[in-house]
């Protein structure tokens, strides 16, 4: 990212220097050959998405002839993300891979891109079905939801109050995972492990930290917290450690090994899960490259994901990359070095 920025700053300065010559440059030739794929994420400065972008670059390098544009809006709102995609359409990129801030609001702009011959797929957080060709889930929603409930049940021995610390109430993936958790929760083995609250930390460290403190105060018998967001789980774990709650309250959910290493070693977190975001960005990009090379990606077809194998697209236009992967004391240090 820094590299691109520097190049673009340079371009800006060059632009300033050429102000006088500009009329002669009006007929700038189109970009060099090689196809461009844009990866539009929810927000920049998020290590999870940075890892996805790393995977995207890996796939592009592996195949060759593709350039990755990694970008996002300043604020994680739909209208800002639409403006970013509008600019990509204007540049006539060849493919756009999106993690949507709002499934419905992005449908019109997705349609517009496809009308102009740009291939659109979504990953991480889906665009509504009419606004994209297909959506790649990291795993399947039921598996992710069930996994997190199973992890906390294992830690607590199936007994004690549990709360959910989510990101924002507007995020598609957060809500569908919470739905899936509640579905798993209906099973009889969790009858002694009630869900007492769902709170939102808006994917901000300070707010998630305060929400975690609030949960501990409001529910003195709280034993476990599930946070299906990397920012929520790391801030929640920090609040547990800072508040002297280690051993009393355990957090689990979806986290990054590099950020959760300390929490696991200190005992605030017994186990957590995630898919490998590098693999995720890699697989999404592989699918996009195959689509650009003419592969069929409609419902029922099978798409290839390079070293990650292949996946079948369901009737809803969605496919899954694989199962979530569990991290605990035994392997977190090893993976912390990777992402």
């Amino acid at each position: 990212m820094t590299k691109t920025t520097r190049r673009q700053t340079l371009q800006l300065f060059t632009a300033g220097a050429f102000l006088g010559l500009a009329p002669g440059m009006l007929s700038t030739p189109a970009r060099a050959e090689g196809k461009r794929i844009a990866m539009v994420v929810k927000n920049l400065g998020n290590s999870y998405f940075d890892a996805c972008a790393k995977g995207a670059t890996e796939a592009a390098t592996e195949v060759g002839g593709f350039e990755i544009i990694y970008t996002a809006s300043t604020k994680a709102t739909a209208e800002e993300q639409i403006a970013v995609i509008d600019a990509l359409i204007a540049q006539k990129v060849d493919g756009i891979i999106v993690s949507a801030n709002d499934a419905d609001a992005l449908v019109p702009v997705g349609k517009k891109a496809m009308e102009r011959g740009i291939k659109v797929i979504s990953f991480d957080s889906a665009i509504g079905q009419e606004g994209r060709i297909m959506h790649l889930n990291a795993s399947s929603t039921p598996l992710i939801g069930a996994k997190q409930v199973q992890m906390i049940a294992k830690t607590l021995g199936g007994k004690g109050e549990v709360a959910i610390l989510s990101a924002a109430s507007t995020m598609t993936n957060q809500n569908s995972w919470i739905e899936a958790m509640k579905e798993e929760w209906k099973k009889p083995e969790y009858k002694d492990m009630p869900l007492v609250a769902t709170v939102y930390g808006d994917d901000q460290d300070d707010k998630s930290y305060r929400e975690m403190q609030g949960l501990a105060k409001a529910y003195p018998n709280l034993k476990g917290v599930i946070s299906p967001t990397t920012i929520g789980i790391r801030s929640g774990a920090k609040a547990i450690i800072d508040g002297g709650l280690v051993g009393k309250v355990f957090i689990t959910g979806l986290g990054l090994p590099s950020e959760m290493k300390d929490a696991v070693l200190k005992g605030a977190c017994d186990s957590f899960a995630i898919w490998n975001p590098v693999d995720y960005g890699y697989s999404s990009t592989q699918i996009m490259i195959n689509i650009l090379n003419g592969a069929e990606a409609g419902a029922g077809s099978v798409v290839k994901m390079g070293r990650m194998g292949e996946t079948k697209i369901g009737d809803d236009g969605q496919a899954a990359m694989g199962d979530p992967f569990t991290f605990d004391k035994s392997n977190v240090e090893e993976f912390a070095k990777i992402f």
Partner: protein
Amino acid sequence: MNKVPRQDVADAAPRSLSDRLLRWESILVVMLVAVIVGNTAISPYFLDIYNLSDATYNFSEKAIVALAMALLILVRDIDLSVAAIIALASLAIGLAAQAGAGLPVLLLIGPLVGAACGAFNGFLVTRIALPAIVVTIGTMSLYRGLAQVVLGDKAITQYPKDLAAIGQSYLIKWPPLPYSFVIFLGLAAIFAVVLHKTAFGRKLYAIGNNPVAARFSGIPVERIRFMLFVLTGTLAGLAAVLLTARIGSTRPNIALGWELEIITAVILGGVSIAGGSGTIPGVVLAVFILGLATFGLSLVNVPGIVISVLLGLLLIFSIAMPIVVRRLMKSRAT
């Protein structure tokens, strides 16, 4: 002592060539030309009629609110709640759509809710005599809070097709002009005529320069200020209609942070934050400068965070430059 009145209110704008060249609007024109030339140089996709037309989608709604905000700042008031009004008005449109209301109702309810919100702001500011900045910081939380309470973690996404057509298609096919952009241009023309060619417009300058003197001159200062709050709310409601129609979705975080972008355009347009000076052409130019600069930078994929930084620097530079130049000239004169 070189103390001079803060504003000299002449009968007519100065007409000499040097005055014209040194006017803020002239500097803005130069900046706009620089933005256009610069963008053309860095991206081959900038000077494309369809791309430019699409770019207007992303700033027209804010630009509409900026027109009313300019008048409000001109009379020394401010409204920080405009983005929250957009959220609340969008919610009203969404609820009406869920109840099965037809297009005319959906188009009217936004401005009506906006007007009501603006009237509440205006009431608190003019009747209870509270500072506008304090009142609207409060109502900013209040209006968006109401939307959050009603929506919770849900979103309203079912809007009729004819509403979506207004937000997503062109009003005029060639040159391709979206509804929101045409409405902005029309309103800008009306605002310019009213502010610069009518007695009402002169009254606004009088209030901005000296509200007490304006009151003693028989100008109904409080009533006009109240009207301007209602007007700002109404246009925020109109912006809500256009935005909701465009993105077809109402969420609590809709239009988050727009108030600062709108005020940025007004200030860059040369409207003094202390009141009493500024023009509509200036604000229109500033809207284009900010909108096209943002679009041009996104065309070369400059990250949004960096764009914010650059626009912030542009604002500070453009506000500071005339003051520094004036000071230098003054110190040379003495």
